């Protein structure tokens, strides 16, 4: 003979289990069906600081050229942070709707490391490289624009290395070499060739 209190206890537990199951099913069916949406907002927080006049080397796909362009950009105190903000200002231009050289949404400069003597390491995020258009000229314009913008505003830099998500990558999107260090003097000559014909 099963004690009465034990029967009541088991029944109560069964009811609770069924109720919890129904609640779980209700919650899971109420959850949104779509997957997570990629967050394309910039990783870094907006910088507050005095605006300074800088020179950006901007790529123009239509004519396949690079043009120097002045801009007022709020720059922080630290040398590395200034370099990062400089390149982020360049990327904002490229991510704008009226971009002369569109980059994929979510493209971002993760960090810039300045290593003495004269070495700058630009760390891009994977969205930058994975979503970049493929082609010799289009990739060359991107690389030259980044390196030259950094070098124009930091005359001490003479070599530049580009990483993607902190790792070395063979090419940007199948063409522009990212496995070697860029010699700024050689990039200057390349940029001269990419100036509009006189």
């Amino acid at each position, binding site marked *: 003979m099963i004690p009465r209190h034990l029967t009541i206890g088991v029944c109560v537990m069964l009811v609770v289990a069924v109720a919890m199951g129904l609640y779980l099913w209700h919650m899971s069916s109420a959850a949104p069906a779509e997957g997570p949406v990629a967050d394309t907002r910039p990783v870094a927080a907006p910088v507050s600081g005095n605006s300074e006049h800088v020179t950006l080397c901007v790529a123009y*796909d*239509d004519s*396949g050229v690079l043009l120097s362009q002045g801009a007022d950009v709020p720059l922080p105190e630290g040398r590395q942070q200034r370099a990062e903000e400089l390149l982020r200002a360049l990327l904002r231009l490229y991510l704008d709707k009226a971009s002369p050289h569109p980059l994929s949404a979510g493209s971002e400069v993760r960090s810039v490391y300045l290593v003495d003597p004269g070495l700058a390491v630009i760390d891009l995020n994977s969205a930058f490289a994975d979503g970049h*258009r*493929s*082609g*010799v*000229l*289009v990739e*060359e314009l991107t*690389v030259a624009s980044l390196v030259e913008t950094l070098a124009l505003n930091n005359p001490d830099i*003479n*070599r530049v290395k580009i990483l993607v998500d902190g790792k070395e990558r*063979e*090419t940007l999107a*199948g*063409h*522009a*070499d990212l*496995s*070697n*260090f*860029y*010699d700024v003097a*050689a*990039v200057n*000559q*390349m940029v001269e*060739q*990419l100036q509009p014909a006189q």
Partner: protein
Amino acid sequence: MACCLLLLFTLLLPSAADDDRHISVYSNAATYTLPVLSREGKDYVGLLELLDPLGAVSAQTEGRRWKIRYNRSAAEFTAGESRAHIEGRVYDMPAHFLLENGRGLVPLASLGPLLSRILGGPVTFHEVSRRVLIGSVAIHFTAQVAKREPPTLVVNFSSPVNPMISTEPGKLLMSFTRDPVVAPGSDFLTFDSKEIPSARYEENNGTARVTVNSGLPLFASFSNGGRTITISSAPQAASGAAPSSSPPAAQSAPPAQPAPAAPSSAVSPPAPALPAVPVRFFAIVDASHGGDERGAALTPQLAEKDVTLDFARALRQQLQGQGLPALLLRDSDSALTLDQRAILANRAHPAIYICLHAGPLGAGVRIYTALIPAGGKDNGPFRDWNTAQASFLPVSRAVSISMSEELQKTHILARTLTAPLRPLNNIAAAAIALEIAPSVSGGTDFDSIAYRQQIVSSVAAAVVSMRGQLEAGR
């Protein structure tokens, strides 16, 4: 009795059909054929038998797993599964691996990438015709009609060849079973001759075949150590006799090595036989991308890798037509790493390396020379890998300017630039890269034959004009 015979015939029929289908493998080590087996409606080939003539190979069966070791490379397959592990890396085959009495069978369709990974070098696989070319063994040819009496078709090969030659009414057939002859720029060649108007290249069942069309009976003769086949009409036909309706007797080519003696029926006297030496290619033409690496999407249907291959084949034909032996680094939809391209090009010691790209941006042709990266220093006689191009830059730039001028003569927009584009900086020879854009900005005429011909003609003309300087820098 009749039923028994029918059953026997039915059982034998598939194996007989299998026996007729084979794959031809060409390499520097050996040239051989293997039977193709039909399993589950797909074509298979034994991997151990395939690798055996190429090097030291051993296989081991552990239950469903089959391990094979070739020289220093190791690969592992599992019966009934399409995933293989080669040198610790995963490779997915298009069909299951089969294990039959310890014999490992791999799908024929997987051979190109599979062999490339196991052998660690370039492998060109013509799947439809079942021909595998391992390394730079391809034999290229050019064909031209010499304007003399009787009209003569001169076919020059980059290495000695030994085809089976037969004739049919209106045709002379050259079948290359043991020679890795590959297609010229176009499969259908036309000549400015009424007597020998055309020739067709085709591949089938492991054999390449060149069919020369003519209204007259043709005869072939060999010269130049088996590198030249001269085809002309028979004397009676050349003297104006009506073409014979009965086919002439089939001819078999003389052996390529040692130097063949020309058949007595030869119309043109054979040239002195030359010793069989490896061909030294003047130009290396490199069609960028290939295999899984599609390059830029030029149109929704057109990938950069396909356009570069078409241009590369046309450029090779154009260069060879001007007497400059040229080699394609890839002659099919196969993948090569940038290092492999540089190694193969440097090993060939060419006078010039020409890399082909295509991109939708802008118009015309952009001609690139290498942007030399920072650092790198030669060590005595050893060149630094990343800056090997440095001392060749002046001649590379001179070639790029010459090409720009030639292109502009034909009203094609041309621009000379520097680019951080590997493997240009690794090449120890004059090296340039071309990025072909549409003829007008926003256009899509990448596959226009006329546009392609205009470009390759200009490029070849520039190379010819720079020949002396390129030879001097070799």
